[in-house]
């Protein structure tokens, strides 16, 4: 019996992946749940495991090919013994080797079936999700202009978007967004319009030219999208870290003994932000077309640097988490981010983000929003500095704080107040206890 292995659901707004590497060759034996193939998406690298034990049949999506959700990756002949692992193929960076066919299929009388031959996985497949319901002309206009159809106000029958709706959105500039799109590694064939319009560039032996990874391209696109969409502004403040440091020093051992995790700074900032977000809901809101969506849940993204780039796993319902829960979750995220093991679900749908440039030594910077969120807090390095306190100079461990916000929905007063509330909570953590 043959089992089909298809591209699993990849998470919110991700409809496509690139086949990064095959772990198994055609004909090779595979155990149930053994990794078969590695897929790379805009957000993560994930492994697809064998649903059954057997021998790998035909590989329908070669390394480097783009595959849509639900596309056929390969087949597994269930229960078949298969062969021993084939010798390792050369690195996939070079031209992918032609998949070896284990045994030639005997010729047989095959009836013609031209019309309804199902489109194989490797044929360009339709992206999943709402794009499918767009009419052909609307779809092209949306994709050509890199719009988010969810942000276009529909006027057609049953809520359909008409071509005129798209034209209006383009004119108003309201629907610019990241649309999942395919992009081949070669610039001439890629969908990236900027890349396509570049003049050819001669090779220079002193330079090295490498294609951007999907993750890097996604980061690039999203950062630029944030700058193009939001009216982004940053407000700064600073916090005396002394009180938190003292609290940490006092309870470090006891905390670690009880919870099995170190008490870090991040839990204080998460807690401080949640409190401030509750007071200033605009910072936790999102612009959706002509509406504002206020979110009564606090899903805080914590930016984590990895060798491949920045990823932002989400602490769900952070208002309901204790200090230890937060620290544990962040530790776990950091570890798995480094290994590339975070799932897409864990990185989708945050309402606010905290970015800590301090771990790299940054003293001061302006973070860029993580759309469609409206606020991001930048933490920085703790630096001893002379401060004027009650008319005297004291050396205090200080941290600059930055809040970048979307001025379209967050007023200056709200942004500044937010940052002041965070500062106050950090400088006097007792406030967190009594919801001040």
């Amino acid at each position, binding site marked *: 019996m043959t089992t089909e292995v298809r591209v699993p659901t990849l998470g919110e707004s991700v409809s496509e992946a690139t086949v990064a590497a095959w772990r198994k060759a055609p004909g090779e034996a595979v155990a149930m749940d053994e990794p078969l193939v590695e897929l790379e998406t805009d957000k993560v690298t994930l492994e697809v495991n064998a649903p059954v034990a057997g021998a790998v049949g035909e590989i329908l999506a070669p390394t480097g090919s783009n595959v849509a959700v639900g596309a056929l990756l390969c087949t597994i002949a269930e229960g078949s013994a298969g062969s021993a692992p084939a010798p390792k193929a050369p690195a996939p960076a070079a031209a992918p080797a032609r998949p070896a066919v284990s045994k030639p299929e005997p010729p047989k009388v095959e009836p013609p079936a031209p019309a309804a*031959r199902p489109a194989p996985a490797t*044929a360009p497949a339709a992206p999943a999700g709402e794009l499918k319901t767009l009419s*052909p002309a609307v779809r092209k206009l949306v994709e050509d202009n890199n719009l988010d159809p969810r942000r276009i106000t529909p006027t057609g029958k049953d809520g359909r978007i008409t071509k005129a709706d798209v034209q209006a959105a383009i004119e108003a500039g309201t629907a610019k967004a990241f649309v999942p799109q395919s992009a081949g590694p070669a610039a001439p064939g890629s969908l990236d319009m900027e890349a396509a319009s570049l003049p050819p560039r001669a090779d220079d032996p002193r330079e090295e030219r490498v294609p951007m990874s999907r993750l890097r391209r996604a980061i690039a696109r999203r950062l630029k999208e944030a700058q193009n969409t939001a009216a982004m502004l940053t407000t700064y403040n600073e916090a005396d870290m002394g009180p938190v440091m003292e609290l940490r020093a006092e309870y470090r051992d006891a905390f670690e003994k009880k919870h099995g995790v170190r008490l870090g700074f991040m839990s204080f900032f998460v807690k401080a932000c949640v409190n401030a977000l509750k007071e200033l809901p605009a910072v936790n809101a999102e612009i959706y077309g002509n509406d504002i969506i206020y979110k009564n849940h606090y899903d805080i993204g914590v930016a984590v640097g990895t060798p491949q780039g920045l990823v932002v796993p989400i602490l769900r319902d952070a208002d309901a988490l204790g200090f230890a829960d937060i620290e544990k979750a962040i530790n776990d995220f950091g570890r798995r981010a480094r290994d590339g093991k975070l799932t897409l679900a864990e990185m989708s749908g945050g309402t606010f983000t905290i970015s800590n440039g301090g771990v790299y030594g940054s003293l001061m910077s302006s973070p860029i929003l993580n759309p469609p969120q409206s606020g991001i807090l930048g933490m920085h390095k703790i630096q001893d500095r002379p401060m004027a306190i009650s008319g005297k100079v004291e050396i205090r461990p200080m941290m600059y704080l930055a809040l970048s916000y979307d001025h379209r929905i967050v007023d200056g007063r709200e942004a500044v107040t937010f940052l002041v509330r965070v500062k106050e909570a950090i400088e006097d953590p007792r406030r967190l206890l009594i919801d001040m």
Partner: protein
Amino acid sequence: MTDIYDLVVIGAGPGGYVAAIRAAQLGMKVACVEKRATLGGTCLNVGCIPSKAMLSASEKYAEAAGHLADIGVEVGKVSLNLKKMLANKDKVVEDLTKGIEFLFKKNKVDWVQGTASVKSASEVVVKPESGKATTLKTERVLIATGSESMPLPGVEVDEKKIVTSTGALSLTKVPKHLVVIGGGYIGLEMGSVWARLGAKVTVVEFLDRIVPAMDREIGKRFMAVLRKQGLDFKLSTKVTGVKNTRTGVTLSLEAVKSGEAESLEADAVLVAIGRRPVTAGLGLDKLGVTLDKRGFILVDADFETSVPGIFAIGDCIPGPMLAHKAEEDGVAAVEIMAGQSGHVDYGLVPGIVYTHPEVATIGRTEEDLKEAGIEYRKGAFPFTANSRARTTGESDGTVKILADAKTDRVLGVHIIGPEAGNLIHECATAMAFGATAEDIARTCHGHPTYNEAVKEAALAVDGRAVHI
């Protein structure tokens, strides 16, 4: 030739020539390499176009010889001038291939005659029939080499008595008995042509039904209609040998289940068991272009092969092997190269059999939907209840619409009947817009038209067809 092309297209069939013209429209400098002496590929030269010319001519003949008298048109003795009929077909082909030459000139596409091999993504070597090979320099290559008739092991095609679809278009006399191996679109169309011109036609099919991928109910209906027209079917039957004799051809057959053998005498045999991609001679193996097990070129969503800069479309990549699908591929591939978005919805490629009556189908079949566990509602309307069909005497057939049980979105339409190949496009447009059956039902349809049967079938999805 020192110029560097933006794009070299290999193959001037409906995929290749359309891609070349679209690329030129987008401002690219394009060359199109074709090994045939004329443009248009299989479709124009030995496929869709000549077969339709023969289908149309033979249908008129059959009508004149058979039914015209029934409606009071008496034409006396009708006789067949096959030579003239074939010449007319050749003229149609010639005119249309010339038409593409004109389009190439108009769009400044360079037509390069010869056989191409791909040296790299930037170099294509073209060997003309006579003379020296030239090398075209290019930014990228688009392979649109199409497909060819799949051979039946052990059967040697001579294109005279044992023919593929190509030879079946030019039989110099009407065979007394034509055996068609393969109950697919091509075999049934060509079988119909020769049956109308007087041949006894037997279709031998390995499976237990003809047009296996078609909606089963429509397929059954289709076979019944063809049977009525005199076509004979041997299903679940294997061809184990084909022997060319002095007087004709002897086929050895074997029943798939019982293994019972029999032999069949024929004047001509048409081998139409499917088509396979043409990639030999391109040098793809040397370049490392990945093919699948059946020889199709694998491409990604941008129609790019495993070798950057080399693209492929049409019959030589996986998917329905149809001219209009190749055209869509070609346009999308080229638009993507130009930095636009491009997309082909393979779920909405219509399939049409140009028999009489025609059969046309788009989207999913009932079997598909059942297997996928999708709940659907079905509306059917017979042409016997369509007033236009009654006036033209073309009331064989039915329209069947399958719509999502909950959302009413149209998922599949299957038509057997007059002008089915034209009727299906009303549904194709509706489906491209994600329309519901009610959308079709509430759209005003002209009266009296065949299209009203589509509207009534859409009403029938909701159980409220008016005219039945």
